[in-house]
């Protein structure tokens, strides 16, 4: 606890915001589905980190419990998402999301 608190809270907030923004930009700018996935994970983890930071500063373990839950759900989500990507790759031989607009018709 004390170790975490040696760094001021603002640093955590700024770091997490930066991490989150990188994730958002990654989602928006990249066309590779795998990279988009990673960006989404980045956003999730930035939120997780923020939760732990707040939890430590407030001496309230509830935030950390949240994080555990989020990690479990994220793991499940990744499993499904990657499975989808594998299927998409098998049928289209690419994971470029612009190729996915053929679902339109």
């Amino acid at each position, binding site marked *: 606890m004390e170790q975490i608190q040696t760094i001021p809270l603002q640093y955590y907030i700024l770091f997490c915001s930066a991490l989150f923004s990188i994730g958002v930009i990654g*989602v*928006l700018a990249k*066309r590779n589905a795998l990279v988009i996935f990673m960006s989404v994970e980045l956003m999730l983890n930035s939120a997780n980190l923020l939760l732990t930071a707040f939890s430590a500063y407030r001496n309230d373990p509830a935030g950390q419990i949240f994080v555990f839950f989020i990690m479990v759900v994220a793991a499940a989500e990744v499993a499904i998402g990657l499975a989808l990507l594998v299927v998409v790759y098998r049928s289209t031989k690419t994971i470029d*999301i*612009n190729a*996915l607009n053929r*679902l*339109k018709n």
Partner: protein
Amino acid sequence: MEILSILLLVFPFLGFLTIGLLQKRMNRNLSGILASAVIFINLILAGVLFGYVSSSNLTVETNLFDWIQFSNITIPFALSVDRLSALMLLIVNGIGLLIHIYSIGYMKEDEGVNRFFSYLNLFIFFMLILVLSSNYLCLFIGWEGVGLCSYLLIGFWFKDHANNDAAKKAFIMNRIGDLGFLLGIFILFTTFKTLNISEIAAKASLMPSGDLTLTAITLCLFVGAMGKSAQIPLFTWLPDAMAGPTPVSALIHAATMVTAGIYLVARSSVLFVLSPVTMNIILVVGAVTALVGGLIAIFQNDIKKILAYSTVSQLGFMFMGLGLGSFSGAMFHLTTHAFFKALLFLGAGSVIHALGNEQDIRKMGGLRKKIPFTFALFTIGTIAISGIPPFAGFFSKEVILTAAFEQGLGMGVLATSISLLTTIYMFRLLFIAFFKPESKELKANHHVHESPKVMLYPMAILAVFSVIAGFVQLPKLFSETQGFDNFLSPIFAKATSLVPAAGPGLDVQTEWMIFGVPLAFIGLLVLMTYNLFVNDNEISEAKGIANVFSNKFYFDEIYDFCIVKPVGFISDLFREFIDQTIINGIINGIGNGTLFVGKRLRRLQTGNVGFYLTIMVLSIIAILFFNIIL
């Protein structure tokens, strides 16, 4: 005894179900026999009940089940057999049986014979509900049910469009009356908190005479009676109802259903005697209807139309009797009328059957020799309805005429002259159809044949009753005991005790006058019509005032102009303008608008995942900002 009154309803209904459900498979000869057998059982049951009720003077009350139970409202489905309903039971089942048997012969060639008999049984079922029910709501079920059967049977030959129109006309006209009846029931319920007929009578007898609520109730009930019993202004459906098969005209539109109005008024006698205004209205409506019906009947050329207008006229005469306070007189005339009018209709059916669906009396003539049995029976009916002693019509008319003379000389003379109209139109019909030299149409028709026995025997039985039915009650002149009056007196005792006793009865001199003068006139009129119609002359077209009569006082035309045309105009307006332009416009506008918006919005669905993601992120940011700003 209770079980008998339930069985009375069960048998015809079973008959209806069996014949109706198996009509595609059932042997066409079997259905008539089955239907008649059902009514025959019913007649025996009715006879037993009649004997029980008339000997014990008890009322058989049967509570089948509580039909409506809601907060403090309880309306049971209950039957009650008293002397009045026992009498109606005999009429409905007796005449019903004869007409069922007659129909076996009459409808033999018809392809819809099974359907016909199922409807007839259904009619008997509903008529019995009407007659037996002990409260006004159940009575209303029967009332509507017979109206339904009437509709089905008028439009029985539905392939001809005119028949359907006639059926619809009857149904709609009856609806107008039914609305009055319903309103009456509503007021009855709010006033008395019950619909049980005898309870209402007991409560109402404590009310003052001329009470406004009672007047409103009776007027509403009378509107219902007017519709069902074809009184002016709701009578025009009855002549058109002749579009149905002739046995139907005999059973429904002469003997039973159309007398439901009279039965209703007689049942509610206590209510009616307490509202003198309504009684006077009934008297006036009855008199005008009897007069108008009689006058129109004189100038008709269709054998069934003559009898139809005759029925209208006779029903008017019964209402006169009711209006004069002679409830048992009206019921007596109802009973005898049921016999001879059914006989006349069956006779007309026999004529139509013999001539191969010819109904125009101008194309008949000389039938006396061609179909002698029908002729003899028809003559008995004619004499009976004209009121010539000792046939039944004389005795029942006598009762009503006496009541009219007790009211005053003017009323008596009016009633007598109205009843004389009967003689004119009936003997005109008889002479033209049976005595006149054969018309050329008839000479050309070589298939004229007497009807089969299955049709003649029921007519013969009716003829016997038309002769002897009157003897249950001889005029006061000849007999001290008034059989029919005494029989029904328990029913009307309460009502008669409520009106101030009429002055001293008529003296013997007046009674002889009432007896003799009409007879002299009848003799004269028979001679006159004989001279007028039994010759080889063509029947001249009606001129002048007669033209008005032969055109039925232009009632149909007036209704057409005043009601049918405006309603048609408004319907056209609604259909063409309001529906087509406005409502359709709104609906189509909504549809087209949605299509238009959809076409534009479709552009958003690019299928480009990156685009979706951008939109998603931008939306989240927008929501965040929105929250911060607020």
